[in-house]
């Protein structure tokens, strides 16, 4: 499978948020403002690639030791520790980047998209480089969905024409449904 196919597949066809329902919490929660949507998206790309870079080799160790069933426990701990370290490292060495992404990092620890991409890379049998490309693509897909969605929300939210029962959370979900419908158009591309 070529890297390009993986990228197109994960960004457009099997978009993590809109087709696979991973990472819905930040998608619905942090998409009100374009700035924070972009910040969250970039932070997710960053953590996804790092987490995959760390968990893929660990999985090979688990496999050789025949304790693959510990995958869930080991992965979530690695991700949690990694995010902590990254936050500390950024704070110390690249304060400007920490200022931009720091707020989002703790939120990402228990984001199901990050754990999800690490596990699905293993399940799909990708090699190391394919896994990294797949994670990067999943993050880019998330960022893309975040940007489009926050643009849509700025037009739709708080519109007085919305029926009372649908104001707030329901209209957000209906908007997401329309975006998801649009992304279904990419089906069959790869």
């Amino acid at each position: 499978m070529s890297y390009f196919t993986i990228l197109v597949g994960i960004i457009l066809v099997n978009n993590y948020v809109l087709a696979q329902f991973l990472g819905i919490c930040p998608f619905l929660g942090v998409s009100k403002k374009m700035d924070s949507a972009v910040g969250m998206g970039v932070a997710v790309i960053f953590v996804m690639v790092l987490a995959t870079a760390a968990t893929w080799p660990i999985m090979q160790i688990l496999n050789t030791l025949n304790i693959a069933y510990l995958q869930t426990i080991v992965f979530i701990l690695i991700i949690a520790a990694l995010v902590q370290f990254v936050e500390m490292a950024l704070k110390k060495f690249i304060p400007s980047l920490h200022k931009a992404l720091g707020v989002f990092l703790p939120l990402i620890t228990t984001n199901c998209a990050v754990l999800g991409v690490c596990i699905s890379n293993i399940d799909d049998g990708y090699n190391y480089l394919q896994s990294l490309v797949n994670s990067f693509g999943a993050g880019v897909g998330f960022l893309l969905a975040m940007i489009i969605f926050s643009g849509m929300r700025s037009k739709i939210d708080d519109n007085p024409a919305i029926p009372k029962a649908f104001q707030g959370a329901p209209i957000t979900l209906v908007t997401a449904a329309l975006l998801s419908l649009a992304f279904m158009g990419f089906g069959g591309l790869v």
Partner: protein
Amino acid sequence: MEKKTSKLSILTKGIIKENPNLVLLLGTCPTLATTSSALNGAGMGVSAMAVLICSNIVISLLAKIIPDKVRIPCYIVVIAGFVTVVQFVLQAFVPSLYNSLGLFIPLIVVNCIILGRAEMFASKNNVLDSALDGVGMGIGFTLSLTAIGAVRELIGAGTIFGFALPWLSAHPMMIIALAPGGFFIYACAIAAINFATKGKGVKGSFGCQGCAMASICQQEKCIAELEKGVEA
């Protein structure tokens, strides 16, 4: 401590008054992803309920021993342990359900309902209350997932728990069983509650308030920063 709540109210509040996904709007990922049929929804609900009850019991027992600073990682390890057990049980006894839920079984670890109950309830209450809370919240979660799943299955495939219905199964609206339908039916369910309770029913909102990590990531600061927008 506020006034003592009865055992019965601890048990029942999770089912209707504080239903985790229809009232508090927690656990949106599994709610959307595993409700393509009633059986999948019920399976997810029961699996999450098993993990929730066990982790609530263990965490309430360990609450005094776990140092405050490392409590979240400890809770996550306890939850991940039980998720692994559930994974084994499903794989051995209901392999078809195991295959259709797939990735979402290990992802029970990061289900914010479970971590949220550990942080907000089990760590502060005794074992019996925590177990009851787990049962109540679990039943509420299972019921709402099954209901959403049943509606999506009925419209999307014309079947209910796998049994084909005469006219509907000949005219299915596929889209409802696919991804956009998940968002749409969930939206309709919340809107229906809003309508029935005149806007007072739904307590949660999507955002930091609903997140289980809120207590450790300095919620107010975090929200204030997000509202302000991030100056890069």
